């Protein structure tokens, strides 16, 4: 069964990459970049060997990895891995143990697990001082690596399976609540990462001591225990990890069994949508302006799709949490709102046609002028803009008032708006040049690497976005302390607007010319 699953996953990956060169390039580039990053971090961790706090760093690294594995797939769908879908094998008579073994094996394939393995190895090497002194210590050290990897992967899959209904369910009533929880956890993880990255190990020892008692801390602590000669403790900790993995597998299987044999409970009572009045001003506006029509449509699509609603809520929450975390580490300034704008760019604008997928054929079929094409682009940006711009303004104002730096408020907003504009401009260009369908179903087998491409596009655009607003940032530095600092608000806003307008001109034209090709790409999902 393991062989079947692994073979299936590899075959799917190969055929999906073969269907599109752009996707293959995106997948390979994404893999290379993330593995390179992981190697860099791993070497850093490994070089810590011998430092007094190296074992604590390993504990922190393991905890961070575990949190990332739990949170990231939930907030971003299956995180670029939609290829292993055990529910599709529901019709085959497969015993639970073999099913889970096979599913685990196929879950271990991919860039994510590879990066994790690299990081774990780095952290273990860092903590392994004296571990080669005895056979039992060496054995514990070597065993800790696969156990930790399994713990991450299995816990992530088990959680994803048990929340699959909430994430893909037609109502997704739990999803919003879940979004709140994830955001809090994610924010805390960010806080941990920032404080450790910023100042060596600024965490109070208590936190490390607590983390050591959490499951991801067990294999990390086992290494130190073994090196210290406390072999019984070490073995107990490893056995605990293994037992936990087994329990998670049981939970995973139970969730899968439920997924296979029950339908989405929210369909038991189908959703009825009240169709509002359609004469009057709203109807006239929507009929007369294609931009407003597309925007209205996009907005309700966002509001009704639990996953996208959650992404949006999470992005808003991160935009709020970022300044809070920054304040906690001592950066008390409204400029922190710029970070919020950046995080937003990282998660939301994405690819404009991703949400609709091949359903945009009806827009393509009615795309009669270049003006229509521009309306498609602007309409898809508007709903996000009207949500995020006031939100950033409120956050920046709040931070300015609390920190007493109201003098920097206008400039902070100017830089934020410039960044937002550039982010949206980039989103338009990417959507038109490299449209990606966003898999509606995170379990879909069809296209591994696809949502990886989606996130990679977002990531690259947010990096480029920062480069593109360098002039505005330079302006903020140059005018710092001067009475003309407020000028940055109109200038930055104009800069962002200009970026959008210039891109809109060229991309509208290109969308008009290439709409059928874009549809063909989206059709491949």
């Amino acid at each position, binding site marked *: 069964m393991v062989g079947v699953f692994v073979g299936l996953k590899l075959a799917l990956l190969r055929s999906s990459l073969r269907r599109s060169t752009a996707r293959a390039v995106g997948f390979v580039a994404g893999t290379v970049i993330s593995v390179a990053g992981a190697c860099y971090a791993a070497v850093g961790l490994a070089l810590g060997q011998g430092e007094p706090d190296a074992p604590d760093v390993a504990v922190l690294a393991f905890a961070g990895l575990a949190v990332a594995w739990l949170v990231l797939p939930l907030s971003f769908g299956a995180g670029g891995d939609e290829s292993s879908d055990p529910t599709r094998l529901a019709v085959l008579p497969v015993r639970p143990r073999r099913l889970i073994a096979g599913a685990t094996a196929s879950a271990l394939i991919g860039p994510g697990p590879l990066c994790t393995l690299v990081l774990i190895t780095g952290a273990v090497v860092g903590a392994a001082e004296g571990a080669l002194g005895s056979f039992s210590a060496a054995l514990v050290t070597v065993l800790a690596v696969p156990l930790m990897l399994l713990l991450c992967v299995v816990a992530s899959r088990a959680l994803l399976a048990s929340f699959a209904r909430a994430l893909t369910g*037609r109502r997704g009533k739990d999803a919003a609540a879940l979004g709140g929880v994830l955001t809090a956890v994610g924010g805390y993880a960010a806080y941990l990462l920032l404080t450790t990255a910023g100042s060596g190990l600024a965490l109070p020892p208590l936190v490390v001591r607590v983390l050591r008692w959490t499951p991801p801390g067990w294999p990390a602590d086992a290494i130190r225990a073994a090196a210290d000669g406390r072999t019984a403790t070490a073995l107990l900790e490893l056995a605990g990890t293994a037992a936990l993995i087994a329990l998670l597998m049981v939970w995973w299987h139970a969730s899968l069994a439920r997924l296979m044999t029950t339908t989405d409970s929210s*369909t038991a009572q*189908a*959703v*009825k*949508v*009240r*169709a509002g009045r*359609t*004469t009057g001003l709203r*109807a*006239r506006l*929507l*009929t007369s302006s*294609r931009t407003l*029509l597309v925007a209205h*449509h996009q907005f*309700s*699509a966002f509001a*009704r*799709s639990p996953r996208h609603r959650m992404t949006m809520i999470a992005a808003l929450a991160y935009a709020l949490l970022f300044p809070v975390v920054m304040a906690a580490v001592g950066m008390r300034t409204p400029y922190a709102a710029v970070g919020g704008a950046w995080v937003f760019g990282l998660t939301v604008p994405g690819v404009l046609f991703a949400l*609709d*997928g*091949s*359903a945009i*054929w*009806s*827009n*393509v*079929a*009615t*795309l*009669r*002028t270049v003006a229509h094409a521009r309306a498609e682009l602007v309409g898809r940006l508007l709903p996000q803009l009207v949500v995020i711009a006031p939100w950033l303004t409120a956050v920046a104002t709040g931070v300015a008032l609390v920190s007493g730096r109201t003098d920097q408020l206008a400039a902070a907003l100017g830089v934020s708006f410039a960044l937002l504009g550039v982010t949206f401009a980039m989103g338009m260009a990417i959507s038109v040049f490299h449209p990606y369908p966003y898999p*509606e179903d995170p379990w879909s087998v069809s296209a591994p690497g696809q949502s990886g491409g989606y996130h990679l596009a977002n990531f690259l655009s947010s990096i480029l976005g920062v480069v593109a607003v360098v002039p505005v940032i330079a302006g903020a530095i140059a005018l710092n302390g001067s009475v003309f600092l407020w000028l940055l608000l109109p200038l930055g806003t104009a800069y962002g607007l200009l970026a959008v307008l210039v891109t809109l001109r060229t991309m509208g034209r290109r969308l008009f010319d290439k709409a*059928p*090709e874009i*549809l*063909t790409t989206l*059709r491949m999902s």
Partner: protein
Amino acid sequence: MQHPPEGDAVPAAVEVRGLRKEFDGKVAVEGVDLTIPRGSFYGLVGPNGAGKTTSLSMITGLLRPDAGTVTVAGYDVWQDPYEAKHRIGILPDGLRLFERLSGRELLRYTGRLRELPAPDTEARAEELLDVLGLTEAGDKLVVDYSTGMRKKIGLAAALLHNPPVLFLDEPFESVDPVSAETIREVLRQYTATGSTVVFSSHVMELVAALCTHVAILAKGRVIADGTLDEVRAGRSLNERFMELVGTPAGKAKGGSLAWLGSSSG
């Protein structure tokens, strides 16, 4: 209005010349020529993978052809989309609908994209929902629709702006017999006023009963086309189809699959 006049004097509703499409070096449509007279009920039949969906996508402006031209109601679909798209109604196959709209909202959205006046959209949408038996499901999300209901709401969306030419890819697939009869009646009425329907189907009896004209596609080529009587040449359409595209059923008779059916478990 008036009945479709006979003969060549009338300009064709759809002219397709030398249409061609390759996917990764594999030819899917290989030089299709079609002349579809105005007011005709035109059936497109052919085995799976013959290129029906690919051809219809290229004819309606959803898939760019590698070569060839398409004129609909006198306008080149790929040179003059402004005029052509206005005159085309489409029910595609294998493309998604907006899952998170209700059926009624989907029609409303389509009407607005088509720039119809709001009151017209409302009135037509209600009538279409009523005729197609979707009134009750009108406020349900499309994501909760059955396969047949999807076909019906797609058909309603295609009819909404009353286009002179309608392209339907397998409109009767999964549709129940009562609804199918309704759809047939709607389409008959529609072509009787001079509008044109082009549709693909696998149900020969249906095509023979409905169509004035038929084209048989196989391996990306038109192997027979003309009026129904010309194509069927005195036999039933089904017999003629089997004769033209060959009968792999013979293989099943000749001893392969011998293991099938003698259940031992």
